[in-house]
Each structure stands twice: as structure tokens, then as C-alpha cells.
């Protein structure tokens, strides 16, 4: 398959589907298309494909297969986790703790829960993008029933204090479940939910080179969620509906194709470091991502040029980046706003996000184009 050459640096928005995943999906759509619930051989083969995928996802987190429920993606996983946990524990308290810079699928779900009578605490990050551990310990009280913290912020790459949240729940003796939105972190950080005290963890396929429309929720042993959807008993009755075998198979294949976390980290770190050094030489550029954040994400302001203008300029050169978070078009970033950055910096902020398909040449091309953009666009003003 020939892939046309573009310089795609928006991998936190979505990624190119890897060959392994595409091949698996095709096979499961055209050859092994049975319904996994069917008793006959074709059903068995579809089920086997699904089991293999489930095993791949479970092994990547060092958990058991029964802990993995497939969903339609990160948004559904987050909704299921928050609603499911809040309603399962509503008799034990009303307090939910999360951060002000979660993805909208957590934030808006939390706001909906507020309308339904729950009390939600939103922790704010500092200027550096980090959530302070002390704030977490203070916010988690004896009557907290749910804590939802993302593993990595999707706009800045800042790594959030998940283990501190687990410790805070333990220390407070709270009946709280810990949910982690790991959509950006999965495959890039060593996440071992069972070991880290995480009860629920959301992942999404299309951020790790699987197709869109598939994700999973890790559910720890003994954790019961109140379901939102009712049907034929699939996915342990938590998320019924005939399983999307082609997408599930593709997710499994994409997970199997992931390089070891340490290797991926080193490769991303090299690209990040290289871009940082080059940006440091450019006047008017301010980097927002913390040095020790997730290296595949780098958020910065490109001088006085509005992000959207620069984004289109770069796109005209075949280079694709994002302004703030791609999910909320044209809205001012709630993350950078919560960090307390000046409005001008927010309006000119770009997010570059790498994947294993990016190279040093891509970084060089981006820098050249950025320099050109800063020259021509600034003059046009």
C-alpha cells in the first residue's frame, strides 16, 4: 500500500492505522465475519479473534482478560466509568473529585452528574500544567465516591498524579473508585492499573494506530458499575450489543504492534528534545509543555501569529499540527485557560504530537515552515 507523503504531527488527535490493524480488520470483515455469539465454527473463530485481542490489551496492562470491556472509544469508556461508578456508589456519598483540565468526555459527564445531584470538585493545575499532589490529598475526603484523573493531559503532555490519587483514597479511607483517562498515555507510559490502585481505566484505539470507533475500559476485579445500556449480555452485560469484531481485532493487532514502552519513550524523547532545542532559538516562541511530560506532546505559542492562521499555513506546506485540542474546534483551550496563561499565548498555541512514524526530518521540515510562517504572517499583520 502506498502512503502519500505528508508530515503528520497531530498524533494526539488521531493516528494512521498500522498495516497490522488494517489487515486484521479486513480479514474479520470479509473472511471471518461470524457473530462471536454463534455456536457454530464461524462463531467460534470470530470469538477466538476477539479473545486474542482482549488478551493483547490485557497483557499490555498486565491485567486479566476479564478486566477488559470493549467500547466504542475513549468518550464512551469515560462516560461508562463516570456514570457507572457514580451510580453504583451513590448510596455511599455524593462527592466526586476530578480536574478542571480533563478531556471533555470526562468534564461534561461530571457536569451532567452535578445536575443529577452529585457534588464535583475540579482541581486546577498550576502554570506549569501540573496538578499538585497536596491538592489531591486535600480534596479526597471520607465521603468521596469517585476520583477521575487523566494519566496525561492531552494538550500539554503533563503527567498527572495518579498514584497520589490512589494513596489519597487509601489514606482518607474513602469508598471512592479511581478512574484514569489513559487515552493519551496508553502505550506511551508504563501503566499497570492493578498495581497502581486504579479501578477503571479508559483507552482508545485510534490514538495507537487502530481505527476510530474502538476503545476499552479496564475494570478492576470486584468493581461493579451500573450499566447504561441493556441488551444481549455481551461484554459481561456491562456494554451489551453485538461486538464489533473487526475493530476489536484491529485494536488487538495495533496493541501487539506497539513497541516496548521504554523504546517508544526514548524515540519520542529524541524528537521532542530536538524540536525544543530548535524552538528555543526562535524569537517569540513560548513552550507550555513541561520538560518531563509525555514526550510525544509539545505545546507552544508561535509568537503573535494566531494558532489557526499558522495551522493553515503549515497545512499548505503539507504539515499537520493542531491548535489546542482538536476535539473542540475553535473554542479557546480550557486547559491553557485553567493553567492561567495569558490570552495571547493561548490564542497562538499549537500542539505538535509525534508517533512512531515521525522522523527527525519531519521535525526539521516543521521548523523551517514555522520560521517561514513567522516571517511572512507577522509581516502580513
Amino acid at each position, binding site marked *: 500500500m502506498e502512503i502519500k507523503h505528508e508530515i503528520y504531527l497531530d498524533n494526539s488527535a488521531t493516528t494512521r492505522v498500522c498495516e497490522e490493524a488494517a489487515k486484521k480488520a479486513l480479514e474479520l470483515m470479509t473472511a471471518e465475519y461470524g457473530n462471536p455469539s454463534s*455456536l457454530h*465454527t464461524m462463531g*467460534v473463530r470470530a*470469538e*477466538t479473534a476477539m479473545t486474542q485481542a482482549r488478551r493483547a490489551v490485557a497483557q499490555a496492562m*498486565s491485567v*486479566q482478560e*476479564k478486566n477488559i470491556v470493549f467500547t466504542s472509544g475513549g468518550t464512551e469508556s469515560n462516560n461508562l466509568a463516570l456514570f457507572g461508578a457514580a451510580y453504583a456508589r451513590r448510596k455511599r456519598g455524593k462527592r466526586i473529585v476530578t480536574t478542571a483540565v480533563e478531556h471533555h468526555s470526562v468534564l461534561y459527564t461530571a457536569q451532567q452528574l452535578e445536575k443529577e445531584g452529585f457534588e464535583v470538585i475540579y482541581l486546577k493545575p498550576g502554570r506549569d500544567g501540573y496538578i499538585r*499532589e497536596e491538592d489531591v*490529598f486535600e480534596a479526597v475526603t471520607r465521603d468521596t465516591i469517585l476520583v477521575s484523573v487523566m494519566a496525561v493531559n492531552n494538550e500539554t503532555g503533563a503527567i498527572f498524579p495518579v*498514584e*497520589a490519587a*490512589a*494513596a*489519597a483514597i*487509601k*489514606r482518607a479511607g474513602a469508598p471512592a473508585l479511581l478512574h484514569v483517562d489513559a487515552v493519551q498515555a496508553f502505550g506511551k507510559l*508504563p501503566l*499497570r492499573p492493578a*498495581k497502581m*490502585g486504579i479501578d477503571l481505566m479508559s483507552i482508545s484505539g485510534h490514538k495507537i494506530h487502530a481505527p476510530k470507533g474502538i476503545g476499552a475500559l479496564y475494570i478492576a476485579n470486584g468493581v461493579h458499575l451500573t450499566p447504561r445500556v441493556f441488551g444481549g449480555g455481551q461484554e459481561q452485560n456491562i456494554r451489551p450489543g453485538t461486538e464489533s469484531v473487526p475493530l476489536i481485532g484491529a485494536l488487538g493487532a495495533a496493541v501487539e504492534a506497539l513497541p*516496548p514502552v*521504554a*523504546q517508544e519513550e526514548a524515540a519520542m524523547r529524541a524528537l521532542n528534545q530536538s524540536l525544543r532545542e530548535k524552538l528555543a532559538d526562535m524569537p517569540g516562541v513560548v513552550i507550555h509543555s513541561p520538560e518531563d511530560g509525555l514526550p510525544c506532546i509539545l505545546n507552544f505559542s508561535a509568537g503573535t501569529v494566531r494558532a489557526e492562521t499558522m495551522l493553515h499555513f503549515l497545512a499548505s506546506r503539507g504539515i499537520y499540527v493542531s491548535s489546542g485540542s482538536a476535539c473542540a474546534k475553535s473554542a479557546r483551550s480550557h486547559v491553557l485557560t485553567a493553567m492561567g496563561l495569558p490570552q495571547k499565548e493561548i490564542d497562538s498555541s499549537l500542539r505538535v504530537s509525534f508517533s512512531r512514524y515521525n522522523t527527525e526530518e519531519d521535525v526539521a521540515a516543521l521548523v523551517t515552515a514555522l520560521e517561514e510562517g513567522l516571517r511572512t504572517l507577522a509581516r502580513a499583520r
Partner: protein
Amino acid sequence: MEEVLLIKLGEIVLKGLNRKTFEQVLLKNIRRRLAPRGEFTVTSAQSTIYVKPASPEADLDLAEEKAGKIFGVIAYARACAVEKEIGAIQRAAAEYLKNELAGVSTFKVEGKRSDKKFPLTSMEAAAQVGGYLLSKNPHLSVDVHNPELTVRVEIREEAAYIHGAPRPGAGGLPVGTGGQAAILISGGIDSPVAAWMMARRGVELTAIHFASPPYTSERAEMKVQELLRKVSEYSGRMKMYTVEIAHMQEEIRDKCPEELFTIIMRRFMMRASTRIAEKTGCSALITGESLGQVASQTIQAIACTDAAAEMPVFRPLIGTDKAEIVSLSHQIGTFDISIEPYEDCCTVFTPRHPRTRPSLPFVEKAEAALDVQALVDECLESVRCVEITPERIYPAETASF
């Protein structure tokens, strides 16, 4: 700060002259079990086995998880190794156990000095580390009787090791030190537990499964493979032989009294299993029978079944209650698989009123209506085989016994 896995030996340390042999087998098992997880160095000293990552992809998290399922290990702990200097030990303890300390309100420190050249006694070292941790964590207080967290500081020959609570290991003896035996596995709750129990006593497993296609489905067999895959996380890799017995079952149904169907079938299974076991190097059979659980598990029925086996038959569950078996199967992780509802060969042609107290002469007389030898030969002509490892299931060559 170097991180290691400390593995404490169980019953092995009670062995006298054989101890070295047992230890060698355990070291070999640990190395083999960790191999798919990257390179590790595995060494032993002072009744402790040290596992250290030796390559960048070697993942101690995964190694730890594996260590919990290796027989012969009584306990294990992840520890950080530091130089034997009290300041370094204090700083390492605060840093290494940061999250654990954050999650509790009370703690204590236990010291253990096996290197007597170290200037502080166990008590002194513990007190100094405790004091330092208190100064760094104002939310903590010391509780020596009932602490939420016990910090352990071991001062050994090569380094000092710091860790929190050790985790209990799987116990038992290293697989391979107890010979080899064949488990007769159905799809139920009991037989995987029986297999696990014998593996825990050091027995290396081979599995024999009886299937009756077209009466039983592929799903039933996959379920058994999946059960064994779970067991193999503890027992290590094994071969599974699948013997097809539908024709033999039809013969029994047609020519023998209905009330004796199960007992005669089980005698066939014993004969076929003995032969497979002999030819695959096994010296005993294992079943999941528990006394009185069903009609074929009365003393009289077991006597009849045993008479057809030509080697010892181990029944580790014979004196256990169903509830105990269920609880063990939860622990092993086989329960959820066992309860998937597929027909197995034992539920095909089940008699309405099985005989609970058959006598051997009576059973033998009924069996005379069959050509026993020919039926056994026929089943064993083409036996399917797969190799089962915790990671995956490999198809193997069809065998003839």
C-alpha cells in the same frame, strides 16, 4: 537506585542433602518463566533468589506478577538496592516507598542485618530510618503493634535492600521435582484445581481430554485449552491430548445396561489414559474426583474405575468440599472459564438413574459385551495434540498410542 525482586524459598529450605537440586530446578523454572519478559539475571544466596533486570525491556512489574505464580516460592518482594550507608538507606527508603507512605497514616520500620560488619544493629538501623521517614512525612505516626505499613530494611552482604510488605508466593515445591503425571481434564470446576494442586507438589503435568464430536463442540475443547492455559501460568507449559470417544460411547450405550454407562465409560478413560501416560513419560494419573460428589465418585465406583488403571491415580480433591474447590478455582482464575455452559463428553448419554454402588464383577460382566481392546485401540489411533503455554496455545502433531 537499582530495583530487584527478592524471592524467598519455601519448603525447599527444609530439604537436607537434596536442597541444592530443588534450588537448581527452581532457578531454572524462574529463568524459563521470565524469559518471555526480557532478560534477567537470576542468582541465589542465603535462601533468597535475586532477580535483576538485565536488558532495557526487562520489566520487573511483569516479573513480579510471574513470580507470584511459581511453585516453590513462599514470598517475594520488590526492593530497591542501595549501598550500605545509613544516609543513602534513609533517602532511598523515603523516595522508593513514597506512594506507599503517602497512602497510610501509621507505619513502622523493621531492620534485619545479616552482614554483621555493618556498624549499626538491626534495631538502630530501623530507628534511624524510621526517624528520617517521620521527618519527611508529617502526616505519619509510628505504630509498632498494628502499623498500616511495615518498611523492611535488610542489610545483606552485597547491598542494603528496602521494601514494603512482601507478597505471599504460591508455596509448594518447584515443578519438575515431583515427577510427571497426567491429568484427566473435563471442562468442569474440579479437574483444573486437581491439576493445580499436584503441580504445587512439584508434579509436571500432561493433560488428557476426552471429547465426543459431533455430540460435543469445538467450543468445549477451546474452553478446556483455556482452563489449562490458566493452570499453566502456575505449572509451566504442558501438552494436551484430545481423545475422541463418541463411537466408544455409542457402543456402551447400545450394548451395556444404562445404569452402568458412566462407570464403564470411566474405565475406558482410565485404560486409554494409562496408555498415553506410559508413552509420554508419566507415572501417575490425576483426577478431580471428590468423594460422594456424583454417582461415579462413591467408594464403590472409584474402586471399579481404579481397577482399570494400571498406575497410581491421584485424587487430590477426594476429601474437599465443593465450596473449597470453588474458592480455589477462583484463586487460580479457572472458575469463570469452568462455568461457561458447553456440553462435555460426560454429559452425553448420561443415564437417568446411575448405579451408585456397582460391584466390580458385575461391571466386568457387563463389559464383556464389548470388544474392550479394539475400542481403546480405535480411540488412540489418532489423538490430537496441542502445546499449552501461559502466553499461547500451539498446535502440535497428531499422535498415535
